[in-house]
């Protein structure tokens, strides 16, 4: 069976003035359907860049990315936007909720891009909030929720359109231990019970333990273990 995400010879070079900075160097990676992959590595190792490329937020300098049989490295900006809307859910370190919208309205956001009626959108959002255990906070605005609750709203927003892939960038980086455990448990449940494929970037080895396996990045290259990463450093 072919993997859900297939990355071949992926390179990313940033140009800052006259300087060229190669952040990813010929990365090859397969992520199977239903995987929960943790990407670890020191700051500047290219974790977030790799995550952004997998999520279609950025385009590679070289190489290919195939997700569910579709080459996303070839897509133009508007095609990529449509692809993201249909296939990827995003969770970020700082939640990135819209502060003036209630939890329900925040969760509804991705559904605005579909043809669903207002009632259907609200009902889908309610189901997603129920799934993350925040049905009773549906009308609350982000400022009225704790950090952990805000992150759970962000997860509800990420899953509301039933995406193929969840990409999470340091989802527990701004949370206390208790909230982090809740969020990671939720992600684990989404992976185990709902079959969601998850790619998570984290610094935290405890967070990585919730994943089904872990890969390490160092200086733009994938290495199998933390020890190997340290040795390479």
């Amino acid at each position: 069976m072919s993997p859900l995400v297939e990355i071949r010879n992926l390179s990313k070079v940033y140009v800052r003035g006259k300087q060229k900075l190669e952040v990813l160097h010929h990365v090859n990676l397969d992520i199977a359907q239903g995987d929960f992959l943790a990407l670890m590595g020191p700051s500047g190792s290219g974790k977030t860049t790799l995550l952004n490329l997998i999520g279609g937020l950025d385009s590679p300098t070289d190489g290919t990315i195939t997700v569910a049989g579709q080459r996303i490295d070839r897509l133009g900006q508007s095609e990529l936007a449509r692809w993201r809307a249909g296939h990827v859910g995003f969770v970020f370190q700082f939640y990135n909720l819209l502060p003036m919208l209630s939890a329900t309205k925040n969760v509804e956001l991705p559904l605005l891009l579909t043809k669903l009626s207002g009632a259907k959108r609200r009902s889908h959002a309610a189901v997603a909030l129920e799934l993350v255990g925040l049905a009773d906070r549906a009308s609350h605005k982000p400022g009225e929720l704790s950090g952990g609750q805000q992150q759970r709203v962000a997860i509800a927003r990420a899953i509301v359109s039933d995406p193929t892939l969840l990409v999470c960038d340091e989802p527990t980086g701004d949370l206390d231990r208790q909230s982090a455990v809740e969020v990671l448990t939720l992600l684990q449940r989404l992976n185990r019970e709902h079959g969601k494929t998850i790619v998570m970037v984290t610094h935290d080895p405890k967070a990585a333990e919730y994943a089904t396996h872990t890969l390490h990045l160092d200086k733009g290259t994938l290495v199998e273990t933390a020890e190997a990463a340290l040795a390479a450093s």
Partner: protein
Amino acid sequence: MKYLGLVWSALARRKLRTFFTLLSVLAAFLLFGLLESVNSVFSEVGHTIGAAHRLITESKVGFMSPLPISLDSQIRTVPGVEELAYDNYFGGTYQNPKNVIGSAIAVSGNFFDLYPELKVSPAALRRFDSTQTGVIVGATLARRYHWKVGDQIPIKALIYPQKGGSYTWTFDLVGIYHARSAMEEQDFLFRWRYFDQAAAFGNGTVGWYVSKISNPQQAGRIAARIDALSANSDHETKTQTDSAFAANLISQYVNLGLIVHAIMGAVFFTLILLTGNTMAQAVRERIPELGILKTIGFSNRSVLGLVLAESVLLVALGGIAGLILAGTVVNVLEGQMGSQLPMMPVGASIWLRGVVAMIVIGLVVGALPAQRGMRLRIVDALAGR
């Protein structure tokens, strides 16, 4: 419509800033409504239904310089002139000097034949013909002073005393006419023959002649023939269309259109700078939020549309409130000042121009911030760059 909540939430983000911006837009459109209301009065004068078929003949010096009544029979002989009326400006005040009856005019008996757009009953016309001191007034003027048919109305003349020296002329209200707009219902029309008999001076003269012509295409030729009648006399005339006469009359005082447009240009320019700055600031603050919208699948064009919709909504909300307020102010002023107030109600045409201005200003104001939002790179936006 499904994006309205999103656009609205962006405006509600900084309530105080939005409130003050709305206030400045409101003030600009209040001014726009009031000035356009004044401007409409002057631009609509003369553009009545029958105006194309009328020529006005006045002294070359101006309408306050009288013409002899003897011209009546001569003008009637000009080919193309179907009917001829004559008028004399009178002017007066009612009860106190503040109640100026600016358009009190002595008219010939056939006046209403030449102004079919002024609707008056046959019975009123019969009374007008048979009553020496009869007067027919516009419905708006009558309403303002609560006049009704049968009332005696004393008017203090601004120029003409009676032969006995009194400046007070008493008229009998014999009819009320109706017209298309309130502005056209401001006239106080009495018989020229009464004026001619009773006035201490100015007898045997008229202020201007009104010719009804059969073919407006021939207006230039007919006007030339009429003016030729008085060529090289001490009362040379200038004949022009009704619209041109009205426009000239106003331009003797002021080029109001130019002033109004200059003021509004300056006001809207300032508004664009002010609101443009507000929008730029609002978008700058929301860069990460716009980045999130793009992340979850909003296209560049959608983000452009959202920001433009936000700026148009902002200007439209303030603008609509401003025009509603302008309409209210005009109504209140009209109630208090009556015919002295040269203002038209804030009607459909002012609203139409206002709404077009709101949309254009909204788009101009939102253009740069919207472009910035559209061009945002997601990874930079999420990183707060």
